[in-house]
């Protein structure tokens, strides 16, 4: 099967390495360099393809947000003179760690997208996908210009307005009716949880940073003298230095295992909602076509045209319904599996870190108490 790996260069180029045993690839192993925009292009090509209307289109990876880090880095450079050397090195390390974390996260999200596509029975056969993977030169996709963005915006407005309208339509199928209500609710919940987890993690990071600064402050206190107390301070500073690393790791792991999971399912549930919208749209179209056919038959005018259109709509709706059912069942399975994996990992990591912290504290307390 297909395994994918991603490396990121410093300018958010994603490099894919993969071994593939699928026959429709020309080589068994190949690698290309891709930019974030190219991922978006691939995603959009899926969305725009009518063929894929019945599938949950894997959500596009979010745009990496390095702006905050960059800003901080700049500030650090400006404030270099006003800080002590230790503070500066600490800050720099902090920032570098942060930068690296965002990087990894970004890479992971892009990878998830590609994995999802590659795992999809239909989408993985997509031509664009193959081009994306194999074409070893720049795809020269450009970012959307303003006009296109504006169009997108209007499309979205129309879609959501339509979505409200369409959502009001009672579904004949209980399964889809249930899925619709569930997804609406779920999407809102997951949105909320994602935002809250982000905030929680951010404050956790802040606390870790504080501990870091306390450690360096204690260090300066400890180096002032060589008294007993100063040695004590140095020990405590050392401990804090270690615990803050653990705390930062906890925050990073929570981010990775919890917040990112929630964020992903926020987007995936949106994609599922989109699928349901497309199906509902098709249903409405189908019903309208039925009505038009009835009308045409009553008037006995353009019946053939109405019939073909009705059949087209019927076919489309049935096709969407058929694949959507499977897609939604898959979505649920995937979701449960992903949550299980991530929650187990989260718990294990939390335990690992807590135990590490405990050990540190016990060790330090042992030394300190032995001292006094």
């Amino acid at each position, binding site marked *: 099967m297909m395994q994918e790996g991603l490396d990121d260069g410093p300018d958010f180029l994603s490099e894919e390495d993969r071994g593939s045993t699928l026959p429709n690839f020309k080589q068994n192993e190949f690698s290309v360099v891709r930019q974030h925009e190219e991922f978006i292009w691939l995603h959009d090509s899926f969305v725009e393809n009518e063929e894929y209307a019945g599938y949950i289109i894997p959500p596009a990876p979010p745009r990496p947000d390095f702006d905050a880090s960059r800003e901080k880095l700049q500030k650090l450079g400006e404030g270099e003179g006003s800080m002590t050397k230790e503070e500066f090195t600490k800050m720099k390390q902090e920032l570098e760690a942060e930068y690296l974390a965002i990087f990894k996260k970004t890479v992971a999200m892009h990878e998830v997208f590609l994995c999802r596509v590659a795992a999809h029975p239909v989408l993985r056969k997509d031509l664009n996908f193959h081009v994306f993977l194999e074409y070893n030169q720049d795809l020269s996709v450009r970012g959307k210009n303003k006009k296109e963005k504006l169009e997108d915006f209007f499309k979205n407005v129309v879609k959501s307005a339509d979505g409200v309208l369409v959502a009001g339509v009672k579904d004949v199928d209980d399964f889809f009716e249930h899925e619709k209500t569930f997804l609406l609710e779920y999407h809102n919940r997951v949105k909320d*949880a994602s935002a809250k987890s982000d905030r929680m993690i951010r*404050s956790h990071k*802040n606390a870790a940073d504080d501990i870091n600064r306390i450690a360096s402050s204690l260090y300066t206190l400890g180096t002032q003298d060589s008294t007993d*107390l100063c040695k004590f301070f140095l020990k405590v500073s050392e401990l804090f230095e270690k615990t803050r690393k653990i705390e930062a790791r906890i925050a990073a792991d929570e981010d990775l295992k919890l917040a990112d999971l929630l964020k992903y399912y926020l987007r995936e549930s949106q994609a599922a909602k989109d699928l349901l919208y497309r199906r509902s749209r098709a249903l409405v179209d189908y019903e309208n076509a039925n009505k038009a056919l009835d009308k045409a038959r009553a008037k006995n005018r353009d019946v053939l045209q109405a019939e073909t259109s009705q059949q087209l709509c019927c076919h489309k709706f049935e096709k969407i319904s058929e694949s959507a059912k499977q897609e939604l069942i898959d979505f649920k399975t995937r979701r449960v599996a992903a949550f*299980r994996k991530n929650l187990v990992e989260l718990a294990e990591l939390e335990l690992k870190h*807590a135990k590490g*912290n*405990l050990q540190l504290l016990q060790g330090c307390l042992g030394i300190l108490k032995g001292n006094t």
Partner: protein
Amino acid sequence: MATSSERSPPPFPDSEDQDVLDTEEVRGRDSDEDEDLFGSPSTSPVTGMDTTLTSDVSMKPPSDIMNDPLIEPMSSQTENKPASEPSDDFFDLTNNVSVVAAAATKSDDFVDILGSETGAQRGEVVKADVTVEATIDKSEVTAGITDPLSQQEAKQTSTAPVIDLSGDSQPVTSKIANPLVDLFSDAPPAAEAKKPSSANVDLFDDEEGSDIFAEPLQTKPAKQLQKSLFGEPDEDVFGEPLGAISKKPVPKEQKEKSVTTKVTAGGPLQDSKPANIFSQAAASTPSVTSTVNSKSNGVHSEEEGDIFAAEATVELSLDSPRNERKKEAIAKPSAPTPTSLPAAASLTKPQPPALEELEEEEEEEEEDKFDIFVSVKDPEKIGDGMNAYMAYKVSTQTTLPMFRNKTFTVRRRFSDFLGLYEKLSEKHGPNGFIVPPPPEKSLLGMTKVKVGKEDSSSTDFVERRRGALERYLQRVVNHPSLLQDPDVREFLEREELPRAVSTQALSGAGFLKMINKATDAVSKMTIKMNESDVWFEEKLQEVESADQQFRKLHALVESLVVHRKELSLNTASFAKSAAMLGSAEDNTALSRALSQLAEVEDKMEQLHQEQAANDTFTFAEMIADYIRLLGAVRGSFDHRMKAWQRWQDAQSMLQKKRETEAKLLWANKPDKLQLAKEEIAEWEAKVTQYERDFERVSATVRKEVIRFEREKTKNCKRQIIKYLECLLQSQQQLIKYWEAFLPEAKAIA
């Protein structure tokens, strides 16, 4: 009379520094008047007078000179006995000094008296008469000078008793005269043999110091003990003459007086200048004062006695600092004993006057022995609106005999705590003690409380303040010297405390205080102290950088607390969201796991909250305490600097006076030269006194800083270990929570 003002105990013992300064002024003025007075009788050339005096001295005069003052002690003593009011004592003292002065300077009369009344028992009586006469001679002047003093005291009733008292004293004098005469007939050879020099004075001072210190301890428990105690040091210094006396049942004060007189005798022997007699008398009188004062303590009510005892300690500026410190260490714990049960004496007994290292150990033992625990509990809002205030329950548990009960509780409001600090810092600050500071007044925090919002920030504020107050009080009672302060005891024990007024943040007194602080700051900037002691220089720097570091650390910990609280809040909201997500999830196992996760997060929120409280109360508050304490340490350094400044000022003044003398000598103005010489002598005495003051303050500061650092080390370690233990516990809880969650997560299918 110059010295009379000096011994007048200032109305408030704490303001003694100020008063001493005042006294100096008064003294300066007094001595001027003295000069005028004595200037006229001694119209004869100074040289002539000098020669007569020296010749007298060489023949027999020591005893004579001694005889004169000898009477005063008697009179003072006799007065002490019948008169129990402090005012009388003061008055006596004034009286005495005037007589001393008269005796010393009025050379003509003096010699006459000497000639007629040496060695005779009745001589004493006669001399007493003479002194009375002398006083009468100058009664106008004495009255004139003592009057303002009396007004200052506001304790004296009138000047009339002066004469009455001296009259009263006569019978008693004659009675006690006997041993004294023996004493003095013995004494002169000793004095001559010893060649009483400044060293002698020092020695004497030391003994004096011990006397004074020991005195409050012994006055109550046993009179005999006291005598034996006094006998010892005296013997050491003065050898046989005093040894002979010590066997006799002479009241202690007489002995002290005799010592004083000897010093006076030493003066002329040494320099053969009348001015010197003066200065010596001046130098020695404070000690007399203190003895007398402390003597009166025994007679007076408990509290007053204590104040005086404390004051005596303070006034003992003549002691060599080292010795005094030692003595202080002994005296401090014992000082309250006269006021309480004699059993307390046993507490002080096992502390021998030891070396410094020993002393430190002892102090630690002492602290353990300070079986006193103060807690501040149950903050309660009293009143409404802006007049509302918080009252705290101050409970004391102690086995110390100085307290009437083992446990007692009083209600105190915040300003009472501040008032206590004001009193203590005024009293002990100038001596170089590090007085633990209470938490600052916080208008904002208190206003919040007053407005009555029962939100977490105001309860947090009250709890913080309560903790800070408790630690502050605990620090005060753990301080060996401060615990002895009557104000501390009053604070802990007395039901109703007079309202502390000067602590209002915006009151007039507060404004004055602000101005004072500003001037202090200015003078601090202007005083350029060329530090002679490297230790102090280093310590000051250390303290300053530590202060800076602690401030920084405090800000960081505070921000950690803020973030931790934020984290707790955000965790709570995430827990809610997770629970909602769980309820929305249609997979049963996943839904269950998510609600379990919500529960875990709920518990985490609790943990974070506890941790934030831990950060605040164990860590941040400790640092805040140390920031305050470091401020107090700097304050004690400032007091040391002030003492130094005073000494320097006195020195430059002396320099000026000497220059004037040189000028006068050159200009050949003998009449003014006399005055200049006296002034020089006076300033010389002041310089030595201030120098010793400075040394004493320095020694105290040094000791206190060492104590502070020891306490700091101990306390910091304890607190940080406590803090880490809290962290440890919360990690253990965390592990428990996640371990419970893990199977739930694995159960998702």
